[in-house]
């Protein structure tokens, strides 16, 4: 570990994994934590439990704001374990001087998104700190959900599964990057920030054989696939041309030198579905507003265990690696 925590330690990729395993897992080690799922499954498998903290700049961005993000983030983690989000806590740390009207706007977004999930905030906390102690506002939400479908786990993926995504990828990361200070670009792109429970519920209601689900937040689809390859000790092979990327996102990636698969998402998830049900799952996902590009992107093999391989249409293979470092634009 480095002597100081760098921004790269929060990237959802390699440095982030190192920090969590060498500091937090080391200290808190227990059987539930070590399963390394999106949400912990507790109480005899009946409840899913997860927490997430939110800091984003700018606070209001195309397609969502920090409030919507704070509800989606935690509820999506619960949904990924096949659970219906039920009860949330909400803690905010606010910088002195922050406009009340903005706070109200954020809270309204939270309220609206809670309704989408059928969840309620049942406890909260507010701290106000001197100017400069936080960047405007930080929000933490913690949630409990009721498990509707048991046995979903990132540790159980096998060669009987196919890999599916629910929509085109990378919209959130691209939107935020374009909106940040120092990048003089404008685009019509919107964040994909969205509650995923309705999609998950539709799959569960149709009795789709879901092995695993994970929302592709920081580190993007690439991080999820690499985590799965390691956790389930498998090789995941993805066809590069199958990965759905919108023209806007791929254009931004071209200009800045990014790969869409490493960009963050807030309403995009990856699924491992039993082969016989994969087409049906895709059909269901396609019925949702942003799901027109839901598709099977890859399969599970054993040619390079714990690695993700990207196949090109011209017959070459390469690794799709866990993203590392801070996201930085190309030089020339």
């Amino acid at each position, binding site marked *: 570990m*480095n002597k*100081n*925590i*760098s*921004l*790269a330690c929060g990237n959802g990729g*390699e*440095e982030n994994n*190192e920090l969590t395993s060498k500091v937090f897992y080391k200290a808190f080690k227990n059987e539930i934590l070590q399963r390394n799922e999106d949400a912990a499954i507790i109480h005899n498998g009946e409840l899913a439990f997860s927490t997430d903290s939110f800091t984003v700049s700018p606070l209001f961005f195309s397609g969502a704001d920090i409030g919507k993000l704070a509800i989606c983030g935690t509820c999506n983690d619960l949904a990924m374990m096949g659970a219906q989000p039920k009860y949330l806590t909400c803690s905010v740390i606010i910088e002195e001087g922050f406009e009340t009207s903005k706070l109200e706007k954020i809270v309204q977004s939270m309220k609206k998104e809670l309704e989408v999930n059928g969840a309620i905030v049942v406890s909260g906390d507010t701290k106000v700190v001197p100017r400069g102690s936080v960047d405007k506002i930080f929000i933490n939400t913690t949630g409990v959900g009721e498990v509707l479908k048991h046995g979903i786990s990132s540790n159980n993926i096998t060669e009987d599964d196919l890999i599916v995504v629910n929509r085109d990828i990378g919209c959130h990361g691209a939107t935020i990057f374009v909106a940040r200070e*120092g*990048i*003089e*670009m404008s685009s019509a792109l919107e964040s994909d920030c969205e509650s995923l429970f309705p999609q998950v519920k539709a799959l569960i209601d149709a009795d789709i054989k879901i092995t695993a689900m994970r929302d592709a937040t920081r580190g993007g689809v690439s991080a999820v696939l690499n985590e799965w390859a390691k956790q389930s000790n498998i090789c995941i092979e993805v066809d590069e*041309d199958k990965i759905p990327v919108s*023209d806007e996102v*791929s*254009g931004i990636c*071209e*200009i*800045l*030198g990014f790969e869409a698969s490493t960009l963050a998402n807030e309403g995009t998830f990856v699924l491992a579905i039993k082969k016989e049900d994969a087409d049906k799952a895709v059909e269901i996902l396609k019925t949702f507003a942003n799901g027109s590009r839901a598709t099977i992107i890859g399969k599970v093999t054993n040619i*390079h265990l714990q*690695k993700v*391989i990207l196949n*090109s*249409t*011209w*017959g*070459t*293979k*390469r*690794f799709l*690696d866990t993203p*590392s*470092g*801070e996201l*930085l*634009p*190309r*030089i*020339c």
Partner: protein
Amino acid sequence: MGLELKNLYDNFRDGDTIKAYAKIIKEDAKKLKNPINIMEVCGGHTHTIMKYGIPQLLPQNIKFIHGPGCPVCIMPKERIDHAYVLSMQENVILVTLGDMIKVPGSNGSLQDARAKGADVRFVYSPMDCIKIANDNPDKTVIFFAIGFETTTPMTAVLLDTVIKKGISNILFHINHVTVPEAMRALIDSGDDNAKNNIDAFLGPSHVSVISGSKIYEEFPRDYNIPVVVAGFEPVDVMQSISMLVKQFIQNRCELEVEYKRLVNYDGNIKAQDLVQMYFQKASAFKWRGLGNIANSGLKLRNEYKEYDAESIFKNVLPLEEIQDHKLCICGDILRGMATPLECTIFGTACKPTSPIGSCMVSSEGACAAYYKYGNLI
């Protein structure tokens, strides 16, 4: 239908076209008398070659040597230490481009400096420095300028604007380098015991968008080494390799341009004039892994000294020479005498998250590209 961004790259990534070139190259390569080693000078090409798995499409008798054309990779620790020290000065905002903030110097990288409280920022365009300077009138913005011929004009435009608008709080630390001098040094560095075996060059093409293809004329003429100025998409690279192979089987040795959609013989004269106006050749620049290369660096002309952070802060900038890490073989890799896989610390002590050698630092470095994309042939 108007032109869309994807029109600029989609067809140049077409699987069928790539496969067709692979077939042509395979057939032509049978007629080669000797194996050929192609040096792709530019890090952008290294990235393309590894990302798109191009070596997997080539016959055994065509190999790549990964050259030194990554502006971040070649930055010696001495210069990074300058940036680090400058960023730690009171009321200074140090601004640079992308990956540069990750490269470790003797005390750490600019990212580390930022974690310790320094105001370090990266920009996509150097012109963004103006906004930063306007927003922070009580601070001095130092632009740590890096890159080859491609990025130098952007620094020149920034300086031009600073002068014309009378902006008083932007200074420059210049680390611009030029490609032909390095190519020459690489050819000359081989001797009978340690030959570098460069048989052909893929010429850096964004460099040529600025400087024209003319800068590579000397290589076929004086060194008998053919050059094809190549674009950065996989179809470009495959076509360029095919052009080089054809030169060999037809006994030609020429400068050719594959990247005709952007490169011409003379280049961008206006950009060249602007660079000429503000910059002059420095006597030498130390390239990480390669050492001092005469005339390969640029510095501000004497009349613009008042904008030169290196001269204004000379009392605090460290001067001592720093040796490259003993186990690192980046120098040999850049000269084409070794591949990353031959390095004992590759992927163990030296990784993208904790780079020891220059080639592991930027995604355009040969070692980083090998590490990231693997070797799945």
